[in-house]
């Protein structure tokens, strides 16, 4: 039941949003085609402006990941984190989540395949993936688009959010799903 509602909702969300926007545009006598083109013309330049920021960030993250330095850090951290009740299998996902969206999705898929989606680890991995966004990507793209090079303290705030999301996913899932 819940599943059907959710899938229907996500299938309908975008088409409905478009229909509502167009209909209300016509209703208030907006020249919809011309307005669309006017808005869309900003799209290209914004995307191009983001490019150098994205290149810088993705190159640095991919070197860190591909070289094995990240794995080394994870191997080192896992035993320490398991002392405070964080399962070792979930540590890579927690580290990857703020760095790379596709990377984190790949790791989550691995956990789901290994333990099964309806196991406790599977559920926790799903919750971690669903509950926060990719901090470095958002930081790079949003600030890049307006040319901000000094993000002040927002990087700490973003990473703090990832940490809270990661830890609370583990504890809240345990609380809800182990009874």
């Amino acid at each position, binding site marked *: 039941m819940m599943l059907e509602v959710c899938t229907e909702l996500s299938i309908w969300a*975008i088409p409905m949003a478009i229909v509502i926007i167009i209909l209300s545009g016509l209703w208030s006598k907006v020249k919809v085609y011309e307005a669309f083109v006017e808005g869309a013309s900003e799209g290209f330049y*914004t995307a191009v402006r983001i490019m150098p920021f994205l290149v810088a960030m993705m190159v640095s993250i991919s*070197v860190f990941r591909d070289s094995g330095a990240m794995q080394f850090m994870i191997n080192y951290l896992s035993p320490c984190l398991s002392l405070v009740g964080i399962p070792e299998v979930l540590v890579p996902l927690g580290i990857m989540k703020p760095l790379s969206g596709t990377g984190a999705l790949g790791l989550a898929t691995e956990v789901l395949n290994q333990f099964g989606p309806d196991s406790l680890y599977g559920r926790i991995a799903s919750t971690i993936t*669903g509950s926060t966004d990719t*901090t470095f990507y958002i930081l790079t793209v949003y600030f890049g688009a307006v040319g901000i090079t000094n993000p002040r303290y927002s990087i700490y*705030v973003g990473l703090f959010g990832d940490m809270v999301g990661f830890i609370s996913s583990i504890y*809240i899932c345990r609380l809800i799903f182990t009874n």
Partner: protein
Amino acid sequence: MNMINIIWASFLLTGIIYAAINGNIDMITNSVITAAESSVNLSFKLVGVMCLWLGLMKIADKAGIVKIITTILQPVMKQIFRNIPEDHPAMGAIIMTISANMLGLGNAVTPLGIKAMQEMQSLNSNKAVATPAMCTFLAICTTGFTIVPATVIALRSAVGSVSPAEIVGVTIIVSLFTTVMVLIFDFFCRIIYFRM
């Protein structure tokens, strides 16, 4: 020096040094070039969705939808974004981004978020440095509060879950909790940062 410089440099340097120690220095060149290329691809993919959603937003804006949604959510947002004047377009853009995020309008979120950043940038006196409002906005976006985490549900169902959507409730609890914690943390950061 700003923290972002240190983080950026240390990702690169630790990666290269680690690879050198372990004898796979040859993969670095490849990794660097592949990443640079794929980030350009990513930007170009953004061009399409950017144009699409900025176009639709212009219609929504002219039709007055943005104004209606803004009026409904204004009381809450006014408390969070105190530095933004009530009738400024930045407020509308912020609210549209957060609403799109909540409704799970996937690829609409980034274009709208950038739009909001641009509006906030117009209120910024130092164009290279983030304003407190931008930091708060970013904090909300990085927690990305969604009612329906569509990607995860799809993934769970693809790997054969008996009940792919059962995590929806927990996800909402976790992301609400995270959003609140992040806003509190952001509030303290702002105080500390501006006292120093």
